[in-house]
């Protein structure tokens, strides 16, 4: 078991080094040198330029700059924002709970709806319900979610007036940041109605972000269930006279869920890509919007650091999923 974990951890090291090379070269591939980019339109004198180059170590050879970069990262220093002068990691930590809250609810929405839809579609294979689920799922999978978000805003916010258009909570409330999760912070604050407001703000963005994962999960659950339902042990269970519900929920579902869980793990990247768009539409103050704004403001330090942090996080999550998978399934653990 330990050998398996060590082997998996060893495999991510080259990937991690690759990511740092990617983010390191990002800054160097920008047309014009970093000092010109930092100085912006104001320009910079030759003396000041030399000072700045020395300060940022840009006068050293590239490999030395890279080693310094890696050394800084190892100490948790991902650079400072060129605009706010705040450390990139601090900004990330402040904004990340908002994205996590949104992604979490999107995932809950996708699983809570996608899983039952897939199961029922598989059980009633060929029925109208099955065809509808497959159609909806393919449509969801093809959905430009930034447009989907705008449509839902038109319907639920503008026409029906049920949900707010943007933000995490109504401007009427002032909620102290304790955990960074608005729902929890609003719950423990004394403000009357703050929690309801936070929930209302969370509904539409979660649906928008959860749409593609929902489609993928429904499809995957259906095909995985269909495969398992054709197995001999299901026929045996049926032949024993077990109730259909018991056969499906207990015997089939448990086996069908293994590939589905893997797929859910793979949705994390999709959720983060989607978060960039969803946060833009709903003015949700998370890391997606932060990165996008940094690009528009040419704050390359934030872009560089942000991408590195997110990629590292995804690698670690994938590692965790792999290890857990090995714990559950000995066949994977022992495969070389």
């Amino acid at each position, binding site marked *: 078991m330990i050998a398996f974990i060590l082997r998996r951890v060893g495999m991510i090291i080259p*990937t991690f080094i*690759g990511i740092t090379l*990617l983010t390191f070269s990002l800054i160097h591939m920008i047309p014009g040198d970093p000092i010109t980019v930092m100085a912006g339109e104001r320009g910079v004198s030759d003396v000041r330029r030399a000072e700045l180059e020395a300060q940022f170590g840009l006068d050293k050879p590239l490999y030395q700059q890279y080693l310094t970069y890696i050394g800084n990262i190892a100490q948790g220093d991902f650079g400072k924002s060129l605009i706010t002068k705040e450390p990139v990691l601090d900004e990330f930590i402040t904004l990340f709970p908002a994205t996590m809250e949104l992604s979490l609810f999107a995932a809950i929405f996708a699983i809570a709806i996608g899983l039952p839809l897939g199961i029922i579609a598989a059980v009633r294979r060929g029925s109208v319900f099955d065809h509808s689920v497959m159609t909806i799922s*393919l449509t969801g999978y093809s959905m*430009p979610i930034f447009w989907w978000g*705008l449509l839902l805003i038109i319907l639920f916010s503008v026409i029906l007036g049920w949900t707010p258009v943007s933000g995490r909570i109504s401007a009427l409330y002032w909620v102290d940041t304790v955990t960074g999760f608005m729902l929890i912070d609003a719950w423990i604050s004394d403000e009357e109605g703050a929690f309801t407001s936070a929930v209302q703000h969370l509904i539409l963005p979660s649906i928008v972000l959860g749409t593609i994962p929902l489609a993928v999960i429904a*499809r995957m659950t259906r095909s995985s269930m269909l495969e398992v339902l054709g197995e001999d042990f299901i026929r045996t269970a049926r032949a024993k006279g077990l109730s259909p519900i018991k056969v499906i929920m207990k015997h089939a579902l448990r086996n069908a869920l293994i590939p589905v869980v893997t797929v859910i793990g793979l949705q994390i990247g999709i959720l983060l890509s989607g978060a960039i*768009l969803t946060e833009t539409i709903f003015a949700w103050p998370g890391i997606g919007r932060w990165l996008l704004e940094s690009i528009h403001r040419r704050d390359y330090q934030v872009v560089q650091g942000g991408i590195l942090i*997110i990629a590292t996080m995804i690698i670690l999550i994938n590692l965790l999923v792999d290890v857990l998978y090995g714990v559950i399934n000995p066949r994977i653990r022992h495969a070389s």
Partner: protein
Amino acid sequence: MTTATMQPPTPFREFWGYFSQNKGALIGFFYILFIMFVVVFADLIAPHHPYEQFRQSLLLPPIWLEGGSWSHILGTDDIGRDILSRLIHGSRYSMLAGAMVVTISLFIGITLGVLAGYLRGAFETLIMRIADVMLAVPSLLLAIAVVAVLGPSLLNATLAIVVVSMPHYIRLARASTIAEMSKDYVISSRVSGASAFRIMFITVLPNCLAPLIVQATLGFSNAILDMAALGFVGLGAQAPIPEWGSMLADARQFVQSAWWVVTFPGVAILTTVLAFNLMGDGLRDALDPKLKQ
């Protein structure tokens, strides 16, 4: 005396037989043909020039609403441009981006993937590590980073999407090549003295094409979606180009007042992407029953 000839169906016939059974795939296929027609004849079909501004009719609603006019069937946008004409011309950018992305990433991806699968060793490790790194960053984020470096434009956005879609082709081509390399026909070809190039691209590659064609179709739809997403966040096509995603970005401010400006570009994106996905599913079932989900 007549001999009943029972010829086996040609590969194309066999493929078409499977493909045409799938109603969704056929609908997708014909919709794509329709879009291609629009792309080619956009100048003739479009009722107006996509940049022409009708100053008297700003934010005109579509024909079936009160105040609609036959000269602007889907209405006009905030500076009086005909939405239908812009959508028709916009199809060119989406389809062109899709075609460029698929062609370039397929070409480079196949070359690197087949080489990796054939040569193995250090070259394979290097290529696959690079692909792993690119797959570890969410695709849209990586594309945004590339555009951030190159500067926002239609061409740079296309290049960015090429970069993010390439790893998929590399992995697929490598996996198929490795699977084929151990088969008898490759060994016999090697024994009879075929060159490395011949084995890779003439003997092995045609047998790896089925999954690549399916991936290319689905890659086309992803490219259209990513292009629209980049346009939407202002990093793709720049105004006044009527690319569907950037049309939506301009339309955002009218969510409260003029729903049609927001709705139609999205319908265009969704239906086109859906058509490619439908066709991709049909191709997968027809070309390779093993891949069938």
